């Protein structure tokens, strides 16, 4: 272990059923540095942090902590706390029913009793020193999400920790609160605390961090000093494309005549309850377009609003030129829209049901309660799509949960194709599946479009988008910030637009 290291993780492996979440990852944190941990969704950042904080137990690898001669084993968050590692999680991990002071002090310290006056006094001191505008005896649930996040930070800071982990703490904070947080981080840094900072906001990384570690697909890409890694390079490392390679990629995006075909779907000032800015959107027959942007930029929320998956709060929608009202998924389905959701496990598969039932589900719902498909008919449909999409399953009766991720995704895709949609929305259809299937899906998208289907395609992998889309809508901070088409469709322009319009 090096002298200045607070924490070293060596060769960490962690797998979940079916997925290798971390593969031989190294990570080093030094005294008095702010270290950004970067990577796209599924890169393994959260898993790495949860291994460090004892929420997940690592499969193999060693964790060294300053002051301990042998590798430490962390089995629970309590043990991590005792080792001087304190954490602020992405989702607020506090108890909403307790007071602010209790949330700061529960699960800590010795003794069996609670001294409320002392606790409230200490909490009030802490809160005012951090300039957080709540009273210690207020119930946490009555505070805004931002204040709750600040309370979580206050708790972590107060723990006399040597390592502080901030897992996307800023997503719910406004600018002044972020400034407060950064000041705090710099103070702690001056005291020699090592901070691991996870965020999707590139500006923030370049504002406070000293060093960046990039993960991709559960593997370490590299550790860089901040001055030596310009913004565009960082994006390219996160997305897995070297800048030099990018120049070589031929722009073979399909040519699509903007004006020739009629508009299938159009929305004006569409907005949902999930906090995106109202946006305008339209798609023509046979067009493939896409939403791009980093995770959390609001690209999924946009398509969810189109499908009526979230509560739609405003906007006017036309399908085939007729104004329609889409407030819940069934409305969208009846208008010939299909939506393959981002989170396959939560929003896609019905785990215990057979492949056959999963394929016919959407069409069945569309057809109606009193007109069920016969088993023979359902099997015929299922077999058709199993063949068409080359789904590898033992039989149509196999529960979908026992299929591999890629095949599950094909089943869901089959489900929506079976409804013969005019307009198909694919949100991250290629995430977490093998390369072969990825290519299959991209080919299928182009084929469907050539047959006249309109498709919106979202992917974290830019080259996939370039290969399939003729028009890209760029999202940043939950706002539609740009539209790229034709010659603009290159890796470099996309990255620059995502990164905030700055050239390297």
């Amino acid at each position, binding site marked *: 272990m090096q002298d200045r290291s607070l924490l070293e993780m060596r060769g960490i492996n962690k797998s979940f059923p079916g997925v290798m979440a971390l593969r031989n990852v190294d990570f080093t944190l030094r005294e008095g540095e702010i270290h950004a941990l970067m990577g796209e969704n599924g890169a393994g950042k959260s898993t790495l942090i949860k291994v460090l904080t004892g*929420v997940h137990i690592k499969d193999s690898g060693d964790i060294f902590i300053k002051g301990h001669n042998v590798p430490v084993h962390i089995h629970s968050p*309590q043990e991590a706390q005792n080792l001087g590692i304190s954490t602020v*999680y992405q989702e607020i991990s506090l108890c909403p029913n307790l007071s602010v002071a209790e949330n700061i002090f*529960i699960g800590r310290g010795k003794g069996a*009793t609670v001294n409320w006056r002392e606790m409230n006094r200490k909490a009030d001191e802490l809160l005012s020193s951090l300039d957080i505008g709540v009273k210690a005896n207020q119930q946490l649930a*009555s505070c805004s999400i931002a204040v709750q996040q600040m309370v979580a930070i206050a708790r972590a800071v107060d723990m006399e920790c040597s390592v502080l982990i901030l897992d996307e703490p800023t997503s719910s904070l*406004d600018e002044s609160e972020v400034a407060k947080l950064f000041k705090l981080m710099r103070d702690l840094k001056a005291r020699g605390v090592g901070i691991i900072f996870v965020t999707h906001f590139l500006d923030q990384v370049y504002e406070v961090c000293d060093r960046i570690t990039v993960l991709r697909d559960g593997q370490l890409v590299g550790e860089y000093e901040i001055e030596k890694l310009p913004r565009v390079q960082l994006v390219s490392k996160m997305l897995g494309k070297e800048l030099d390679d990018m120049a070589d990629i031929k722009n073979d995006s399909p040519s699509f005549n903007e004006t020739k075909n009629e508009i299938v779907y159009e929305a004006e000032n569409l907005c949902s*309850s999930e906090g995106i800015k109202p946006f305008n959107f339209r798609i023509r027959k046979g067009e493939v377009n896409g939403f791009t942007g980093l995770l959390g930029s609001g690209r999924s929320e946009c398509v969810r609003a189109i499908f009526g998956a979230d509560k739609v709060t405003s906007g006017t929608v036309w399908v085939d030129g007729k104004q329609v009202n889409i407030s819940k998924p069934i409305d969208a389905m009846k208008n010939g829209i299909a939506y393959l959701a981002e989170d396959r496990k939560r929003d896609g598969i019905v785990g215990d049901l057979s492949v056959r039932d999963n394929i016919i589900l959407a069409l069945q719902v569309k057809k109606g309660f009193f007109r069920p498909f016969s088993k023979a008919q359902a099997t015929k449909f299922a077999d058709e799509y199993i063949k068409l999409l080359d789904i590898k399953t033992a039989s149509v009766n196999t529960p979908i949960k026992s299929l591999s991720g890629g095949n599950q995704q094909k089943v869901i895709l089959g489900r929506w194709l079976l409804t013969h949609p005019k307009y198909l929305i694919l949100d991250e259809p290629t995430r977490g599946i093998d390369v072969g299937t990825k290519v299959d899906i991209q080919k299928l998208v182009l084929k469907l479009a050539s047959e006249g289907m309109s498709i919106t395609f979202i992917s974290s992998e830019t080259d996939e988008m370039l290969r399939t889309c003729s028009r890209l809508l760029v999202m940043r901070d939950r706002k539609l910030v740009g539209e790229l088409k034709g010659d603009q469709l290159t890796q470099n322009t996309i990255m620059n637009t995502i990164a905030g319009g700055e050239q390297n």
Partner: protein
Amino acid sequence: MSQKYLTADKSRRSLLGSLSDTNLLMSITIIVFFAMYLFAVFALGSGFQKAQTFFNILNANAALIILSCGMTLVMITGGIDISVGGMAALVSMCSAVYLDMHSGSVIGAMLISLGIGLAFGLVQGYLIAYLDIQPFIVTLAGMFFARGMTTIVNTKPFNVQNEAFVKLKETRIIIPGLGSYNKRGEYIDAYIEIGVIVALIVVAALFVFLKWTKTGRNFYAVGGNKQSALMLGINVKRTTFLAYLMCGILGGIGGFVYFMHVGSGSATHAAGAEMNAIASSIIGGTMLTGGVGNIIGTLFGVLSLALIQNIVSSIGLDQAWWTGITNASMLCIFLIVQSVIIARRKKANLSSSRPAEVKGAKK
């Protein structure tokens, strides 16, 4: 954000937001209780003006108070225990059989009661906390096991004749100065039974436990959000286990207090006590979803239920079925109130604007 929105937000917050969920729900109950009692005293007259009427409510419900306290503990952690009524019946029957058929001592009977409660607590707690089985199923089975065992221990109901026990049962603690005159003009002292003292001690002890010990606060944390509690460094499984263990022991104590009140063993004893305990806890402001609740509230929950039954019967609706219907309506109303409060709080938190809130909090 417009100025209008700001002020509207602020006023709602000062009403609802200044109270924590626990205190809000508990205050409602206490207010309802006193309002009902005042109504009874002024509108229904004579009976309710005597202090003994109130003490009788306590005497008759001492056991239920103890059982409800246990229920409140597990409900705060987000669970439920419906075996308490069955436990009380089993405890009464075992104690009765031990005292009369084996001519045992009162102390022995108490130990047996505690032992039964402990056994239930250990088994149910283990199954729920460490094997992660639904609490309702486990304790439903516990309830049926207890009821069945009661019959197996002894089929016929009987009154206990054991002298030492009868003496204990009939001990009355006189409350000076609160007595009343009967029709013939004789002064009758107001009294409470020993069970009431036990119940009040339990209430006081648990109040202190929940308010001022770390373990007690951990109960709230686990009920508030299991995942968060884990992240905050709390041993969730042990805390859950402890809640059921304590509930089991309280079931044993409550069973014995019940036995002291009725002085007999029967398989039909304490029928529906678990439902009354749950209803009392809910009425007292314990939230089914966990994390919210208070022992004092539970005490008033029990008293409110008993009081409303007294009122209902004294205004002439004395048929047996009114008890069930009133209990259920009270339960239903409070459940829906809770559900609505939760929904509104959630909405308020989602829609409230950040600046408005920070200002509201700072003022």
